[in-house]
C-alpha cells in the first residue's frame, strides 16, 4: 500500500504539480525574504538580516496616507457594490422579467473587458462630460462598477442554492416581502455577503490598471507604489510594503474561503 502511494507521489503528474507549486510561490517568498535583506540592491547573494525597511515603511507618511486612501476607497466601494450587487442578485435569481438576460450580459461585461477600456471611458465621462475633478470619489465609483458583477456572482450562486420556499414560508407566517428578505433571505446568504465584500475589497485594494485614469491627486497604495518604482533606491521599500500586503492578502483569502464553504454546507436545500 505504501509502495503504491509512494509511486503515486513520484508519478510525473505529481512531480509536475509540485514543481509548478514551487514555481508559483517562489517569487512571492523571494519578495518576503528580500524585505529583510540589508541592501538597497536586490541581488544575489543576500546581505545581512535587517528590519530597517519595515521601519522605513511604517514611518513614511505618504505611504501610510496612500494605505489609508486604499482602505477607505476599498471599504466604501465594497459596501456600495455589495448593496447594489445583492439587490441585483435577488432580482435575477428570484424573478423572471423581460430584459433579464440582457442585464446579466451587460453586468458581466466589466469583469471581462480590459480595465483600461473602462478607465478610459470613465475618464472621458468625468472630465469631458461632467467636468468634475478626479478624486477618490471618482475612483470609488469606478471600483463599484467592476465590483458589482463580482458581488452578483457570489451572492446569486448562494441564493440559487437556497430553498425558495423559505421566503414563501416567512410570508405565509405574516412577514411582508421585505421583512422576509431581511429576516430570512439575508441571514441565510450572509456568508456569501461577507465573502463578496472581502473579494470586492481585495479587488479594489489591488486595482491599478483602471485606477490610474480616474484617480486624482490623492493616490491609493498601488498607484503610490508604482510611482516609487521609478526610483531604484526606493524599490526595497516597495518590496517590503509588498510583503506586508502579500501576507495580509493570503490571510483574508483564507477567511473568505472558509466563510463561503461554511455557508454552502449548513443551509442548502432540505432534501
Amino acid at each position, binding site marked *: 500500500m505504501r509502495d503504491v502511494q509512494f509511486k503515486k507521489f513520484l*508519478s510525473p*503528474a505529481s512531480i509536475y*504539480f509540485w514543481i*509548478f507549486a514551487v*514555481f*508559483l*510561490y517562489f*517569487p*512571492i517568498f*523571494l*519578495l518576503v525574504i528580500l524585505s529583510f535583506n540589508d541592501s538597497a*540592491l*536586490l*541581488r*544575489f*547573494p543576500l546581505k545581512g538580516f535587517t528590519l530597517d525597511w519595515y521601519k522605513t515603511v511604517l514611518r513614511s507618511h505618504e505611504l501610510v496616507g496612500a494605505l489609508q486612501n486604499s482602505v477607505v476607497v476599498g471599504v466604501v466601494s465594497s459596501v456600495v457594490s455589495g448593496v*447594489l450587487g445583492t439587490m*441585483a442578485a435577488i*432580482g435575477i*435569481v428570484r*424573478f423572471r*422579467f423581460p430584459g433579464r*438576460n440582457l*442585464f*446579466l450580459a*451587460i*453586468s*458581466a*461585461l*466589466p469583469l*471581462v*473587458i*480590459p480595465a*483600461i*477600456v*473602462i478607465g*478610459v471611458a*470613465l475618464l*472621458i*465621462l468625468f*472630465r*469631458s462630460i461632467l467636468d468634475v475633478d478626479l478624486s477618490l470619489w471618482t475612483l470609488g465609483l469606478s471600483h463599484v*462598477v467592476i465590483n*458589482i458583477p463580482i458581488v452578483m456572482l457570489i451572492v446569486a*450562486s448562494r441564493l440559487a442554492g437556497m430553498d425558495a420556499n423559505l421566503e414563501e414560508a416567512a410570508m405565509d407566517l405574516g412577514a411582508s*416581502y421585505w421583512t422576509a428578505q431581511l429576516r430570512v433571505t439575508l441571514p441565510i446568504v450572509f456568508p456569501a455577503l461577507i465573502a463578496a465584500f472581502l473579494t470586492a475589497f*481585495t479587488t479594489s*485594494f*489591488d486595482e*491599478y*490598471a483602471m485606477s*490610474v485614469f480616474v484617480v486624482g491627486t490623492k493616490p491609493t497604495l*498601488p498607484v503610490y507604489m508604482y510611482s516609487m*518604482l521609478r526610483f531604484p533606491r526606493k*524599490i526595497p521599500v516597495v518590496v517590503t510594503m*509588498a510583503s506586508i*500586503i*502579500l501576507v495580509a492578502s*493570503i490571510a483574508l483569502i483564507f477567511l473568505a*474561503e472558509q466563510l463561503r464553504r461554511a455557508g454552502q454546507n449548513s443551509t442548502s436545500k432540505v432534501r
Partner: protein
Amino acid sequence: MERNSRIFALMTPPVVFLAVLFVLPLAIMALFTFRGGSFGLDTSQPWTLEHYQKFIANTTFLRVFWRSIVLSFEVSTLCILLAYPIAYYLSFHAGPKRITLLTMILVPAWISYLLRVLSWKIILGGTGFAASFLMWLGLVEKGVPILIYSPAATVITLVYVWVPFIALPIFAAIERIDPSLLEASADLGGNQSATFLRVTLPLSLPGIIAGFLFVFIPTVGEYVTPMLVGGPKGVMFGNMIWGQFMRALNWPMGSLMSLVMFVAVLLPIIIVARFVRLSDLAGV
C-alpha cells in the same frame, strides 16, 4: 402588481448605476471617436472621420495592435498548456486532498497583480536576482539583463500571473465529466491516451475555452506589465492607448483605439455566448 413593484425596487438602483457609469461612458467614448481635434470635448469641432483615417493609415498602430493580439494568444495558449496537467493531476490523482491542493494553487492568483509582476521585474532585471544569481555561479558576465525589457519578459510574467486562474475552470470541467464515460471507454478497449484524447479532452473543452478567454481578453488590454518589464520592444496596444491619454493628449484617438480594443475583445465573447447561455455559466 406586487411582484412588479418588487422587481422594480430591486433592479432599478443597480440598473441605473450601471447605465450611467458603465454603458453611458462607453457610448460617449464611442461618440468621441467622431469628434475632430485633439483635446476632447471641443464642441466647436465638427463630426469627422479623421481619426479613423489616421488610425488605419498608421502602420505602427496596426502592427502593435496585431502583435498584442498575437502575444495574448501566446500567453493564453501557454497558460492552457501549463495549467491543464495541473487540473488533470488534481482531478485524477490527487484524491481527497484535491480541494486543498487546488486552493493552494489559487491563493497566489488572488494576491496583488502588481506585486506579482514586480517580483518578476526583480528576478529578471539587469542587476536583478536571476542575473546576480547566475553571476554568482560564474555563468555569465556582469550586468547582462536576463530577458527583461523584451516581449519574452512580458509573456513570462503574464503567464505567471494568469496560470493559476486557468487551473480552476479546467479543473471544474474535468470534474464534471461523468466517470462512467471513462469506464465505458476503457471497457470498449481504449488505453490511457486514447481515453484522454477521445473522451477527457473533448469533454473538458468548455473549461479550456472558458479559461482561454478568461486570460486572452484582459491580456489584450495589458499595459502595466509591458510598462514594467516589456521595454521599448515589448510595447503593447494598451501602452499606446495610455500614451494617447497621458502624453499625446489626443483623447479622440485614444478613444478610437480603446473602442477598437473593446470590439476586438467583444467578438470572441459573442461567439461563445451563442453556444453557452450566460445564465448557465453563472449557475443561476
